[in-house]
């Protein structure tokens, strides 16, 4: 129940954010520029599709008492479990004496007989959860600390810079692994670990931008009017930081999704019972050594991962080009 509520809240918040963004000339212009490029539209369609899948996998209810809670996705795509592997669209099992399969599996079944297509779809929500939750927790922290350091300067700046230099001196992958070993596997744990390792870059960016904005005339004007630091930061400087922050968050999202796969593969990501592309790739890796080669679960998990990351990268780049053509870096 709480899950449904949270999902609804997030959706509404997202809707409001997009609506408000479209009302400001900067974003409206950026979206207009983006709409002219077919590639970006394609990426947008992919993102919308993945988001729909993630939402469909977030709303769940039970049919009655003692019935398992199932999400919308489960109800549509879950297939009965087979006894063995079967290639995509197969009709018969791969046992010594082939029997008819219980259902058609578009992308075949894996070693335990689970439908690969369904498992791949299940990974979408995990990827969004990891990327989204981490971004949502990192953004406020990085924004607050970055703006404070940049605007107040002196001791505050020194302290915040010291904290992030210390964290940044530890190579990211090592810190991630150490934290995951200590916190244990799990989605919230992974979000915390990824958050700790990924806020530094954003904070540094925000600090630098705040430093630039601090001496602009509009800030001076606000100060001359007698506004306090909190109000100047929140109402005047923050809106000017948002474009660059959103661009870097979009590109950061794709890095988080990639990191999840690698950490899950190393056995320090999400637990095995949570459907994730990293776990699928890990399970599928050894199957390549079999004869005949079992490739479908590896290929579908990595294709889904590839599509999501590619779409995020394209949209992130397009946002950057759209917001500020001078920043164009292809």
């Amino acid at each position, binding site marked *: 129940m709480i899950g449904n509520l949270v999902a609804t809240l997030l959706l509404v918040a997202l809707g409001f954010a997009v609506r408000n963004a479209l009302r400001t000339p900067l974003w409206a212009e950026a979206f207009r520029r983006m709409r002219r490029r077919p590639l970006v539209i394609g990426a947008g369609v992919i993102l919308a599709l993945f988001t729909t899948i993630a939402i469909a996998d977030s709303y769940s209810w039970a049919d009655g008492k003692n019935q398992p809670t199932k999400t919308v996705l489960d109800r549509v795509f879950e297939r009965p479990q087979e006894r063995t592997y079967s290639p995509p669209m197969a009709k018969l099992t791969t046992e010594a004496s082939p029997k008819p399969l219980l259902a058609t599996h578009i992308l075949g079944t894996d070693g335990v007989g689970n439908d690969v297509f369904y498992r791949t779809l299940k990974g979408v929500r995990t990827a969004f959860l990891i990327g989204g939750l981490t971004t949502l927790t990192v953004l406020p922290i990085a924004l607050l600390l970055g703006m404070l350091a940049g605007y107040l300067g002196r001791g505050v700046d020194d302290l915040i810079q010291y*904290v992030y230099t*210390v964290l940044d001196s530890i190579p990211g992958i090592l810190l991630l692994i150490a934290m995951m070993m200590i916190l244990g596997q799990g989605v919230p744990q992974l979000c915390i670990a990824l958050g700790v390792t990924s806020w530094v870059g954003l904070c540094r960016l925000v600090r630098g931008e705040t430093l630039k904005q601090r001496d602009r005339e509009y800030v001076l004007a606000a100060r001359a009017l007698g506004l306090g630091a909190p109000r100047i930061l929140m109402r005047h400087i923050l809106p000017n930081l948002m474009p660059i922050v959103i661009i870097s968050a979009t590109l950061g999202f*794709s890095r988080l999704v990639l990191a999840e796969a*690698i950490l899950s593969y190393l*056995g320090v990501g999400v637990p095995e019972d949570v459907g994730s592309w990293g776990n699928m790739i890990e399970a599928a890796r050894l199957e390549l050594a079999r004869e005949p080669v079992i490739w479908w679960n590896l290929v579908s998990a*990595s294709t889904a991962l590839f599509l999501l990351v590619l779409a995020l990268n394209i949209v992130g780049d397009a946002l950057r080009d759209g917001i500020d053509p001078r920043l164009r870096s292809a």
Partner: protein
Amino acid sequence: MLRYLVRRLIYAIPILLGVSIATFALFYLTVPPEQMARQNISAKNPTPQQIQDWLVARGYDKPMPEQFSKHMRGMFLFDFGKSDSTSEPIVDRLRSGVGPSMVVGSMVLLGSVAVSVVVALVVAAFRGTYLDHWVTFLCVLLMSVTFLVYIIGGQFLFAKLLRWFPLAGYQEGASGLRFVLLPAIIGIAASLGANVRFYRTVMLDEMNRDYVRTALAKGVSSSRVLFVHVLKNAAIPILTSFVLSLPFVVTGSLLLESFFGIPGIGTYMVDAINGQDFSVIRALVFLGTILYIVGAILTDLSYALVDPRVRLE
């Protein structure tokens, strides 16, 4: 120069202190040692006595301040102690692992910088053309593929299907080259997308400068402008990314090494993860940090070497 170096080294001390306090807090305070023992002891339900023995044998039973001072002393004297699971000295494994890690790591680093700088230069020369557009799009494609797919796919295609390279293994000396060639190629391929894109931006920034126009106007051939004038001026960003990757040459690549059975530090790390070996992870985190700090100092020093305008005071 020397004064600068000394000052940078002094600045590094509070950072190192911070890192060791952070790692201590991470490894000793967030998880009680009993839990580490439970995770580490192979028996399913260890008796309290077993746990106590495990703690005593590794010094986790001592009071916190004493452990803290031991932790700090060990880190600064590079005395990493013994592995929690196998009880062999960590330094021994590090020493034997550095070689293999560096062989693969340096091949990947050098190869990737060389290939991507050349590609980026060529692409930058043809900026705005179809070639440029397609190569930059290809870079985004390459960047979006997870490293896992590069390794699994590369190993499957070139080692298993085509049999051009051995599947996995490692050998010292020149005869071992065939073992490290495929991992190196895969490592280069995987880093190509991001690198070419980055270097292309760097080159484009340089190509809009006045000196390029002057050189072209006085009749210098465009290839000479590209490979001599522009490349030299683009050296600083290239150098930064190069030197900052040096620590990872030593610590090796977790995935590459474990997939190809290269007995380097990356494999050691993967083993430590699988064996829940906290002391090894702790040592590797600290080692990685020291290397990173040294790398950052080296970057600044190397600026002064390539750019006479940079004076280190």
